């Protein structure tokens, strides 16, 4: 039986990706994503896991026309910076035609496939963002 290598980090961090959990520093009060053992702003180790808001605003985005191997079906790939109020997240922006995106538009979290570990490996899932319904309807 072939032993496929599994990316252990992806497994350990699945709950953060699946449920959009971030970290919050009890010292300086700031939130961040992904959760880390130390606050990236003040280096305090007094951090806790928090559920981040699933709604935010698109700050800025870029469009990748030359995509990673395995992502050709998804080309072009849009990567955005999303402001959730308490923290900012870098995420793929999906279900959007590139010409319709504007900075400041409302976006919401969705659960999607991030990538596959090859044809026979694990499918890695996590959160991405899409334009909120008020933008598209």
């Amino acid at each position, binding site marked *: 039986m072939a032993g496929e290598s599994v990316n252990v980090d992806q497994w350990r961090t699945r709950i953060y990706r699946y*449920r959009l959990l971030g970290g919050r520093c009890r010292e300086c009060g700031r939130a961040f994503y992904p959760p880390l053992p130390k606050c990236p702003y003040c280096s305090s180790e007094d951090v806790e896991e928090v559920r981040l808001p699933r709604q935010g605003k698109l700050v800025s985005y870029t469009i990748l026309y030359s995509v990673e191997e395995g992502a050709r079906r998804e080309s072009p790939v849009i990567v955005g910076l999303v402001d959730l109020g308490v923290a900012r997240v870098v995420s793929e922006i999906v279900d959007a035609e590139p010409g319709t995106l504007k900075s400041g538009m409302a976006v919401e979290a969705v*659960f999607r*496939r*991030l990538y596959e570990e090859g044809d026979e490996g694990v*499918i890695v899932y996590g959160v991405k963002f899409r334009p909120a319904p008020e933008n598209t309807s």
Partner: protein
Amino acid sequence: MHNPFKAGAGIHGWGAYVPVYRIRASEIARAWGWPDHQWKALGIEEKAVAAPDEDSTTMGVEASLNAIARAGVDPSRISAVFFGSESKPYAVKPSATIIAEAVGATPATMASDLEFACRAASEGLRNAMALVSSGAMEYALVVGSDTAQASPGDVLEFTASSGAVAFVVGPPKGAAALVEAAYTYVTDTPDFWRRAERPYPSHGEGFTGEPAYFHHIESAVRGLFEATGLKPSDFDYAVFHQPNGKFPLKVALRLGFKPEQVKPGLLTPIIGNTYNASALIGLARILDAAKPGSRILVAPFGSGSGSDAYAVTVTDVVEERRLRAPRVDDYVSRKIYIDYGTYVKFRSKVRVREGL
């Protein structure tokens, strides 16, 4: 009335999901050069197409989050997750655990994927109701989700679509809809199947209509009527499995229902056949709008073959619950049209050699 459930069970929350992408049936006909008379009788305007980063698991997660939001239940109180699909992302590895983990129901929960063509999720519903009404657990989550496959150029390509539905089943107290009775009818009938390691399903010529769809749904519904004493005029709504736009109306007429009872739950003409979500997303749409006290007949069907008939009554709490998540129509009205080329790209129908 005959009630097969000891303590009863109800639907506390319901949730749906339909992908944003649509392809018009006329665009599929254009690609294959089909004349109108070959496809217009299917009663399909357009169908929903999953994005390339979607699968039955991701769609099931969104429907589940909507159902849990409506139920207002802490997901850690869900003790079973049943996932019904015929388009599982893995041949071996449960989608139910991925969904359970994403919604926060892990680790103290049962979780399994069920297979019965388009009625696997309905079997999940029967299991969930049995577990809840027996007192084995408080809440169970049932998910039906499919990115239905169709061989390019096959008539199935006009209807096979993508969508998901989920229900939180719990005790009668606090339920938005009570399941009064259920009746299941199954036989070994080869109307539609997909062999292992084959990408596309096959349908048994001459088997899909009368011996499969009509015989099983009619038998299940008549069985329910016999067991309960109910009749078509006792129902405000009737929702049947919807492989196309015409079969549900035909089976309704044959059972004595009127088209007005069927149309509110009929979604296939505008989103296609979502397989495991087909009849149940129709139920979700009815729960989005039905008045308290309404009675709904629900009859999913799965090839191979079998059907379940349920009598469902809407309670007073339905109105506040429906405000807690997007309605089926919110998803139906959100759409981006794609052409046939984009459709084959999205659904992996073209072979790509990457890394060059």
